C-alpha cells in the first residue's frame, strides 16, 4: 500500500523530465576536440575501472585493478602477478564498488584514485599519471569490504568497514551465534602517505556485528568525523531480506577518527592478530609483495567519545555529507523519507544523557530527533545515494522508482524528478562528493537496461545516464552502455589531469633488474634449466631474434621496449603458451613472459600491438631442442 501511495506521489514529477531538445549538440565532441571531464566508473563484478570522456560518453580505457586482464597481461606476468596475491593465495578477480578520488583540503587534487574489493577485502591505489594500479593492500579482520575506500578531507586516511560481520578473529562457531554477539565488524583506518601515496593499516576498531554498508567522511567543521551506515541491526542470520528489515530504524555510525588516533597514541589500542598482504608496484620494477602480520585494535569502550550511533530509518544505504560538512544525508533504502542529520546538533547532544536512548557495546545510541535536521518527505521509492551540486541542491538516486530526485537543502523540498533507465544505484556529480563540486554534469549509474539498446542475448550491458545540471532544471542528455556494472564513479575535470598524464617511462629511470637499455646487451643466458632472454623491442624488430632452448626449460623473456615515443607500446606473445596471455610493454618498460618450453619444435613469437608499417614483420622463432 505504501509503495502504491508513494508511487502516486512520484509520478507527477517524473513526467516532467524529458530529453533536452538540443541534447545531441551538447554531448557532441567534434573530431579532435577533447572532453571536458574524465569519468572513472568502477566495474562492479568486472573488478576493473573504466575511463570515459564526458559529455561524449566515449570509452577511453579499462584500468585493470582486481581482475586479470589478458589484453595487456596484468595479473599474469612476473611483474604484476603478485599484485593479486592475498592471504588466501592468488585471487585474480574481485567485486569493485567505490571509487574515491584523492583530495587536498576537501578538493579533488588529481593524484590518485582508490577502489575497494568487496569479496576478498582489499583496497587499491591507482596512479593518475600512468592510469595504472600501483598498490593493493589486503584488509585483515574483515569480510566484505563494502564501506570502503572513503577518504578524509586531506586523504589522511581511507576508511574501510566490514560488510559481512564474522567472528573476529576467525573461528568456526555456530552461525546462530551471530545474534549472540559472536560476530563482529571492524572499521579500518588505512593511512595514505601524503607524498608517495603508500598505504598502511594504522588502526582497526572493533564494532558491533551489523552489516556496515557505506561511508563518507566529513568536511570543514566535520573534518574529524566519518559516517558509516549499517543495516541488519537485528542481527538476523536466516532469510535476511525479511529478518534484517524488521527494525524501524538502523544506524548511521558517527566515528571520530581524530579521537581514535588520539587513543591509539595514548596506547589504548592493543595488539591484535590478522595477516595481510601489501603489494606495491614501484615505477617500472616488479611488484614488491610483503606479508604483514598483526594490527592495532581499539575497543570503543576504551576510547570514550570515539563513536555514536544515530538511528536512521529503515536500512540506510548511502550516507553522504554535503559540501559544507553540516548535513549528513541517509539513504534509507526502505524508508519513505530521506533523513538528514545535522552535524552541529550531533556535536550539541552527543554527550548529553537525555539525548541518548541506550548503548550498544559501549557505543551511545542517540535519539533520532536529537540529531535530525529535517526529512525530505515522500521523495521517491528506495532512496539510496546523494550527491551535491554546490548550489544548495542535493540529488538522490532512487532504486525502486528508477529516478533521481533533486531537492533543496534546508527546505527539504523536492524540486524535480528525473527518470533513470532503470534501477539507479549510485549517482555521481563532477566533484560531487568533495567540498567543491564542479556541478555541471550528473550521471546515474543503472543496474538494468532492458529495451534501451539492441538486444544481445539475455545479458545486456549496464548503463549510465548523463544529465546536465548546470541550469535551474536538470536535463537528460544521453545514455550509454558501460563495462561491467557501473557501480560508483568519480568525475574529475579534465584540466586537472590531462597535462600530467605520463607519455612514456623514461628508459634511463628503468630500474627493472632484468632491463637492458641497448640492443647490444640483448642476450640469452642459461642458468641450469632456466633460460633468461634479455630482449629488446623497437620498431620493428626484436633482439635477439632467433632463440634456441631445450624442451622442459623454464624460459623468462625479459622484454624491454626501447621506444621513447608516446603511444608506441609493443606486444609480446608466444604461440600456444598455456599460462601467459599477451603482454603489452609500454615505451621504456620491462615486462617478463614466463614460458615452459614444450615439446621440440619451432614456435613463433611476435609483436601483437600494431606498432608500425613493418609491424607484421615484427616476428621471430624459438627453436625447442629435444
Amino acid at each position, binding site marked *: 500500500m505504501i509503495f502504491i501511495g508513494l508511487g502516486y506521489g512520484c509520478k507527477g514529477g517524473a513526467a516532467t523530465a524529458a530529453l533536452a531538445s538540443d541534447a545531441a549538440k551538447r554531448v557532441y565532441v567534434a573530431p579532435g576536440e577533447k572532453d571536458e571531464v574524465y569519468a572513472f566508473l568502477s566495474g562492479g563484478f568486472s573488478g576493473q575501472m573504466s575511463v570515459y570522456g564526458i559529455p561524449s560518453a566515449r570509452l577511453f580505457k579499462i584500468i585493470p585493478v582486481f581482475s586479470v586482464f589478458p589484453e595487456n597481461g596484468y595479473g599474469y606476468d612476473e611483474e604484476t602477478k603478485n599484485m593479486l596475491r592475498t592471504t588466501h593465495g592468488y585471487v585474480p578477480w574481485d567485486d569493485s564498488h567505490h571509487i574515491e578520488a584523492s583530495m587536498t583540503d576537501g578538493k579533488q587534487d588529481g593524484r590518485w584514485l582508490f577502489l575497494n574489493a568487496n569479496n576478498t577485502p582489499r583496497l587499491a591505489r591507482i596512479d593518475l599519471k600512468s592510469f595504472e594500479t600501483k598498490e593493493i593492500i589486503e584488509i585483515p579482520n574483515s569480510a566484505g569490504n563494502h564501506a570502503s575506500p572513503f577518504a578524509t578531507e586531506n586523504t589522511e586516511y581511507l576508511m574501510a568497514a566490514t560488510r559481512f560481520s564474522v567472528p573476529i578473529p576467525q573461528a568456526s562457531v555456530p552461525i546462530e551465534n551471530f545474534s549472540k554477539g559472536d560476530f563482529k565488524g571492524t572499521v579500518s583506518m588505512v593511512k595514505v602517505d601524503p607524498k608517495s601515496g603508500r598505504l598502511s593499516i594504522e588502526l582497526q576498531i572493533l564494532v558491533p556485528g551489523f552489516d556496515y554498508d557505506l561511508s563518507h567522511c566529513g568536511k570543514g567543521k566535520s573534518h574529524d568525523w566519518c559516517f558509516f551506515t549499517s543495516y541488519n541491526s537485528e542481527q538476523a542470520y536466516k532469510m535476511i531480506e525479511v529478518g534484517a528489515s524488521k527494525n524501524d530504524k538502523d544506524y548511521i555510525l558517527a566515528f571520530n577518527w581524530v579521537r581514535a588516533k588520539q587513543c591509539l597514541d595514548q596506547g589504548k589500542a592493543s595488539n591484535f592478530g590478522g595477516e595481510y598482504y601489501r603489494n606495491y608496484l614501484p615505477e617500472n620494477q616488479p611488484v614488491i609483495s610483503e606479508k604483514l602480520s598483526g594490527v592495532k585494535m581499539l575497543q570503543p569502550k576504551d576510547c570514550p567519545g570515539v563513536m555514536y550511533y544515530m538511528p536512521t530509518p529503515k536500512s540506510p544505504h548511502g550516507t553522504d555529507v554535503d559540501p559544507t560538512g553540516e548535513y549528513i544525508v541517509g539513504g534509507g533504502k526502505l524508508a519513505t523519507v530521506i533523513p538528514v542529520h545535522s552535524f552541529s546538533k550531533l556535536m550539541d547532544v552527543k554527550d548529553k544523557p537525555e539525548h541518548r536512548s541506550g548503548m550498544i557495546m559501549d557505543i551511545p545510541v542517540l535519539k533520532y530527533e536529537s540529531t535530525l535536521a529535517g526529512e525530505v518527505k515522500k521523495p521517491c521509492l528506495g532512496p539510496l545515494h546523494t550527491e551535491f551540486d554546490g548550489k544548495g541542491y542535493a540529488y538522490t538516486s532512487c532504486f525502486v522508482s528508477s529516478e533521481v530526485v533533486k531537492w533543496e537543502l534546508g527546505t527539504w523540498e523536492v524540486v524535480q524528478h528525473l527518470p533513470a533507465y532503470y534501477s539507479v544505484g549510485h549517482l555521481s556529480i563532477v566533484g560531487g562528493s568533495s567540498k567543491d563540486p564542479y556541478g555541471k554534469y550528473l550521471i546515474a549509474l543503472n543496474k538494468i537496461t532492458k529495451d534501451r539498446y539492441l538486444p544481445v542475448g539475455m545479458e545486456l550491458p549496464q548503463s549510465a545516464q548523463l544529465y546536465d545540471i548546470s541550469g535551474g532544471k536538470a536535463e537528460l542528455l544521453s545514455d550509454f552502455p558501460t563495462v561491467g556494472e557501473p557501480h560508483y564513479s568519480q568525475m574529475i575535470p579534465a584540466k586537472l589531469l590531462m597535462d600530467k598524464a605520463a607519455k612514456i617511462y623514461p628508459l634511463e629511470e628503468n630500474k627493472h633488474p632484468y632491463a637492458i637499455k641497448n640492443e647490444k646487451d640483448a642476450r640469452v643466458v642459461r642458468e641450469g634449466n632456466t633460460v633468461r632472454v634479455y630482449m629488446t623491442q623497437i620498431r620493428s624488430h626484436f633482439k635477439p631474434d632467433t632463440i634456441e632452448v631445450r624442451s622442459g626449460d623454464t624460459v623468462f623473456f625479459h622484454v624491454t621496449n626501447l621506444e621513447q615515443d608516446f603511444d608506441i607500446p609493443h606486444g609480446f606473445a608466444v604461440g600456444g603458451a598455456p599460462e601467459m596471455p599477451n603482454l603489452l610493454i609500454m615505451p621504456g618498460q620491462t615486462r617478463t613472459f614466463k614460458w615452459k618450453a614444450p615439446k621440440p619444435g619451432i614456435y613463433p613469437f611476435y609483436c601483437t600491438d600494431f606498432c608500425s*608499417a*613493418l609491424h607484421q614483420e615484427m616476428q621471430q622463432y624459438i627453436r625447442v631442442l629435444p
Partner: protein
Amino acid sequence: MQELLLKKISKMNRLLILGVGLLLISVYFLPIWHISLAAPQYPEGLGMKIWIDKITGSSTYDLQNINLLNHYIGMHEIVSESVPELLFMPYVLGFLIFGAFVTFLLPRVYLIVLGILNIVILGILGMYDFWRWEYNYGHNLNPDAPIVVPGMAYQPPLLGCKEMLNITACSFPSWGGIILFATLGILVFILWNEKRRMDVSK
C-alpha cells in the same frame, strides 16, 4: 676608398661593435637552425635543432624518434658525433667574437669590412656544408632498407618547406642563426653609416 678603410669608427659604432661581440656570445647557448617534421601520426610535431656544437631533438626524445622514422628508408642515424664540423664550429664563433673585441679596441673601418667578409665567407661555407650533409643523409641510403621508393631522395630543404612522402619538413634559422644574420646586418649598417659620415664631413 683607402681613406674610408683606414678611418677610425665613431664612438657610437664602436659601442655597437662591442654589443655585437657580446651578442655573439649568446650563440653558444642558442640553436642556430631548426628543422621541423610534420606527419599525421605526430600531431604534436617532431623537430631537430642544430647548435654550434651539437644536434638535438626539439624535445627530449625527438631525435631518437626521427632516427626511428628514418630507419625505414635506410637513412644513416643522425647523431652529433657523425658531424666533425661541430668540433671546430665553437672556435670559429670564438674567432668572430674575438674579431669584434679587437675591432672595439682598434676601431678601424677595415676591420669592419674584414668582419663582413668573414661572416659572409663562413656563412656561405656553413650553408654549403649544411646542404652537403643534408644531401648525403637524403641520398646515401641503405640499399637494404625496408622501404625503397625508386627515384626518391629524402633531402630536407636548406630553407623553407618540402614534402617527402607523408612528412612535411621545414627548415629555418633559429635564434642563433637569426643573431648571426643580424650581426652581418649591423656590420653592414656600420659600414654604410661610416661612409655616409665621411661623405657628409667632406
